[in-house]
């Protein structure tokens, strides 16, 4: 495989993108999970699909547009969707969770209509739904790299504010933290990370990469920083292990990555139970 990695650019792209996504998806996932917003990733991934479909539709009529990576349009839709979710939360103050199914079904509905108009029900669609490692180009990889740098920079600079807001939003605001602007920046980051991650794992599986490593980490970590550390470790194990397994067994990488995350989760739960029984 090492030889193949030297030889094929698409494999290099896939591995490098995988390594980066294995860091940023679980990193943001930690903040999402502790705020009990785990489903937000699902809603945003479906909106992203609508954006990609819209891009394919425009590409059908404009040859210029065909040269533009559909993921960019996906990002724009995902960002708009994240703002839409925030808005819906304010409207349905007592039913905040409603924002998720509204956005999720709206996104998939829009996506399906755009795709049918663009005659897009073909193998491309499959790539977006379940991820395709082969489809990752150098420009895709560049997009992942840029988003990774932005995410790492913002999370480092706003770490203590994000941490405080996640722990106790009301108290954080009382302490003079500008909750709304920081929440706005955070949700935009989530939207971007989802848009770039779905190329590897696909629309239907992207939320798993943000939540499963965190679910495992939260059971064994002490403190918040350690939770982040373990989440990234488990995320990397799943992505890299999944890509290698998929290569040798010739199975779908997106699904393999997610199954591996689930296996890690089960292993951690068993480990925790054994440890409790001993003590």
């Amino acid at each position, binding site marked *: 495989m090492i030889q193949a990695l030297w030889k094929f650019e698409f494999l290099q792209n896939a591995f490098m993108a995988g390594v980066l996504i294995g860091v940023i998806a679980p990193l943001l996932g930690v903040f999402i999970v*502790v705020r*009990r917003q785990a489903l937000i990733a699902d809603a945003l991934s479906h909106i992203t699909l609508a954006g990609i479909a819209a891009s394919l539709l425009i590409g059908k009529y404009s040859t210029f547009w065909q040269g533009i990576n559909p993921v960019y349009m996906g990002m724009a839709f995902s960002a708009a969707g994240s703002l839409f979710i925030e808005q819906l939360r304010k409207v349905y103050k007592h039913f905040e969770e409603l924002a998720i199914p509204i956005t999720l079904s709206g996104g998939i509905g829009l996506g399906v209509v755009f795709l049918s108009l663009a005659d897009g029900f073909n193998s491309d669609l499959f790539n977006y739904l379940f991820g395709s490692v082969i489809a990752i180009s150098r420009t895709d990889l560049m997009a992942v790299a840029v988003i990774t740098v932005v995410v790492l920079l913002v999370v480092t*600079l*706003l770490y*203590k*504010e994000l*941490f*405080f807001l*996640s*722990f*106790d939003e*009301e*108290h*954080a*605001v*009382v*302490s*003079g*933290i500008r909750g709304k602007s920081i929440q706005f920046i955070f949700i935009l980051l989530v939207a971007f990370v989802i848009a770039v991650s779905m190329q590897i794992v696909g629309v239907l599986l992207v939320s798993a990469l943000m939540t499963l490593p965190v679910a495992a*980490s*939260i059971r064994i*970590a*002490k*403190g*918040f*920083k*350690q*939770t982040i550390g373990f989440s990234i470790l488990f995320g990397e194990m799943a992505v890299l292990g999944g890509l290698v397994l998929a290569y040798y067994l010739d199975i779908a990488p997106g699904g393999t990555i997610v199954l591996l995350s689930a296996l890690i989760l089960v292993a951690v739960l068993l480990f925790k139970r054994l440890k409790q029984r001993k003590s």
Partner: protein
Amino acid sequence: MKNSNSIINLQNISFHYGDDYVLDDITFSIPKGAFVGLVGPNGSGKSTLIKIIFGLLKPQKGYVNIFGQKINKFHDWSKIGYVSQKANSFNSGFPASVFEVVSMGLTSKLGLFKFMKASHREAVLDALQLVGMKEYSSSNIGDLSGGQQQRVFIARALVSNPDILILDEPTVGVDANSTSDFYQLLGKLNKDNGITLLLVTHDIGTITDKVTHVACLNKSLHFHGETEEFEQFNDRELSGFYGHHVHVLNHDHGHGGV
């Protein structure tokens, strides 16, 4: 009761939703060094008053002064420590260590894009030492008892070296033994460390022998003064204020309770 020594000054504050008055003409001040108990039944407007003090709600009438400044000019919120009701303020499964929780108290003092230095880490440990929780600094907050968690939250409020602590129903969900330890800690902070305290509670019975000043709130202010005067306060007035009979404990004084 406006004097230059007061930390927080509320002047003729009224707050209403339509015709429904939540607070009616409240004038109230907290002198430096005092331990003020703000008591009132549920729905008496206590939380609204706290929100007004923090500038989260704007009163329709009246104004708030903090450290002699108008509230909209006041920015140094690290001078005010806040401890909220434990029970519903955080998710107890949250994976944060005690040290990390107390560090949150430095967030606004440090400001945006600033990181903790060694001196800040020391301040966190000092605050934990003060509330007797230093040995738990690496435990997860969710693994502690209610009383221990409340001590950690006090440390979080203390770490920025505030002049005043505002505690909103801090003993809800904390068992009786820990509650008594908790009041002891508050007394120590007030007497030995010179921190001004505003304790907001619906439980009038347990605090009268601990605080130096009492304020009774039920939409309007029914009593505001030193604790000794409060003990002379008419029994009937107090029962009328609460809507039922209330027992005031006077542990340190010879004369009978109400």
